[in-house]
């Protein structure tokens, strides 16, 4: 029965402007839904990626006493790196970080600070640790811009840092800020200073020791090493995921409304169309077309709206969305920062195949159903009345 689809299409296209307008509106809903959803996934992915790149790596081994929320625990949260982890480090698949509590004296003020020692030549965490590969007697220090704000220190400045080594002996040195990094991940910036791992180990009399060992992203890890517990990325990202989930639920209501409205438009059009064409229907019925076929025809016309909408949406939507995904949306850096989010100045939406296909399917199905509803009137249509122009 090729006739019906062809007829439907012809009718639809024949309606001209009205069809295109409806289709356009529907496609707008389409694109908007995908965009919003993409924005949230993009947000999640961006924050996760940035944090994973700069801090979490593929997961971390935490020394048994380490508790990131309890600075007092740092005194005991260090141990000699076990052999199995050392193997990974040598293969450049892991990098150790030693974290120690210290005190900073910028300008005579007292400021507690975390001293973090990292291998300047580590290659898989995304921050400029190379700047610490300085070969002189000075103590090179790497800080982030947020630290600059809270300490008023600048690149090239020296500042007194005090700490107590593994025996509790006080030590203090002047460190020189060799680099100020601009990072979107606040958790490697605020309240901490980075120095070369070896120097820190020497200063602290903690040779070959570390507090955490960060694993490269492509590594498959499963075993727990004695005295160290493995924290995978999911665990490390818990907080972030929670917040994004909240936001996504909030916006789903907007989708519902958007869709609803678009469906209202389609419904309207169908009613209109049925009303206008009753004579035509009467004629067709007189010619032998069954009611069922008529219903199919009109339903199909309505549904085709959805198809056309999807097509149009693809036509302008794809380049638009791809453009946005590539260039991102400008964001003010500070606010997200305040909430501890590593997003930075541009948000890049990300669209999953599931998202796009799912939305398309949803819209098509809903459109079809909505198109069908008004056609039930046709079932009661008497050809004689219809010919006359009445809608019984």
């Amino acid at each position, binding site marked *: 029965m090729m006739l019906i689809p062809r007829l439907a299409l012809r009718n639809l296209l024949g309606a001209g402007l009205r069809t295109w307008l409806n289709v356009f509106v529907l496609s707008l809903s389409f694109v908007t839904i995908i965009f919003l959803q993409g924005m949230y996934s993009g947000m999640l992915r961006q924050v996760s990626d940035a944090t994973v790149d700069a801090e979490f790596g593929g997961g971390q081994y935490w020394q048994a006493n380490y508790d990131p929320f309890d600075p007092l625990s740092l005194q005991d949260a260090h141990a000699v790196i076990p052999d199995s982890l050392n193997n990974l480090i040598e293969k450049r698949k892991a990098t150790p970080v030693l974290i120690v509590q210290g005190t900073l004296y910028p*300008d005579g003020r007292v400021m507690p600070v975390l001293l973090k020692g990292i291998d300047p030549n580590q290659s898989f965490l995304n921050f400029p640790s190379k700047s610490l590969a300085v070969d002189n007697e000075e103590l090179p220090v790497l800080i982030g811009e947020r630290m600059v704000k809270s300490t008023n220190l600048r690149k090239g400045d020296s500042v*007194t840092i*005090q700490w107590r080594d593994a025996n509790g002996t*006080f*030590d*203090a*040195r002047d460190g020189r800020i060799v680099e100020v990094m601009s990072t979107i991940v606040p958790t490697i910036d605020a309240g901490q200073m980075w120095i070369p791992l070896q120097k820190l180990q020497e200063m602290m009399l903690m040779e070959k020791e570390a507090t955490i060992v960060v694993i490269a992203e492509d590594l498959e890890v499963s075993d727990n090493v004695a005295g160290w517990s493995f924290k995978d990325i999911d665990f490390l990202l818990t907080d972030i995921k929670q917040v994004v989930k909240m936001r996504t639920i909030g916006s789903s209501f907007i989708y519902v409304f958007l869709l609803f409205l678009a469906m209202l438009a389609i419904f309207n059009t169908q009613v209109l169309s049925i009303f206008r064409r009753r004579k035509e229907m009467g004629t067709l019925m007189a010619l032998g077309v069954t009611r069922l076929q008529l219903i199919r025809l009109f339903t199909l016309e309505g549904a085709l709206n959805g198809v056309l909408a999807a097509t149009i949406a693809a036509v302008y939507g794809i380049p638009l969305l791809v453009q946005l995904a590539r260039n991102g949306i400008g964001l003010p850096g500070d606010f997200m920062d305040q909430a501890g989010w590593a997003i930075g100045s541009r948000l890049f939406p990300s669209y999953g195949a599931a998202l796009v296909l799912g939305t398309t399917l949803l819209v098509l199905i809903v459109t079809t159903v909505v198109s069908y509803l008004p056609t039930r009137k046709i079932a009661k249509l008497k050809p004689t009345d219809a010919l006359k122009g009445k809608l019984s």
Partner: protein
Amino acid sequence: MAQTPTADWILNKVDENFGSDNKIIVSEMVIHGRRGSRTIKSKSWIQGRDKSFSEYLSPPREQGTKMLKLEDQLWTYTPSTDRTIRISGHMLRQSVMGSDLSYEDMMEDPKLQNLYHAQIIGEEEFLDRLCWVLELTSKGEEITYYRRKIWVDKERYVSLKENRYAKSGKLLKTTEVLEVFKAENRWIPRKAVFKDVLKKGKGTEWHILSMEFNADIPDHVFTKASLRR
């Protein structure tokens, strides 16, 4: 004819003058903060580096608060809560009452000779007294201040000024005595000022009101039970 004494000998005399098996000290601490100064009076029983018991006598808010230090464990009792609370050893490094001294500084009475090698590096006048200047370098590992410099009164063998240094040689804290007095045939600082050199501020003053040496301190003083007494 007195020869120039060796540094070790001088240090020994210093420890003889000030050192004892134990001490009972009644003192006042004047803490200069950003909002003004306050005076805290306390009585302490100290035995070497490992045992120390303090009770705060005034002002009324602090009165009755007691602290017990046994090696690197610290307990405190406050009458307002009627609780004996164990404070982790990490707290030992924190400042006492907002002063420039840490709990360690306040609750330990080390014999310098045991901990440091000494060297005479000069002579200077301080507080109108002629002093030897000694440089002390740590003998071992478990020590808080790696290096110290002390000005020892040539006649009285009391340390009138002390500088404490980090391993790197950076000056961290200074103590300057303002007045001395004699008790039980020993010369004791009556008033001294402690200062954390790295931070801004006027430092903390310490006034010793009385000091007893080698008193008969019953063992039960250094137990948790005495916190509740």
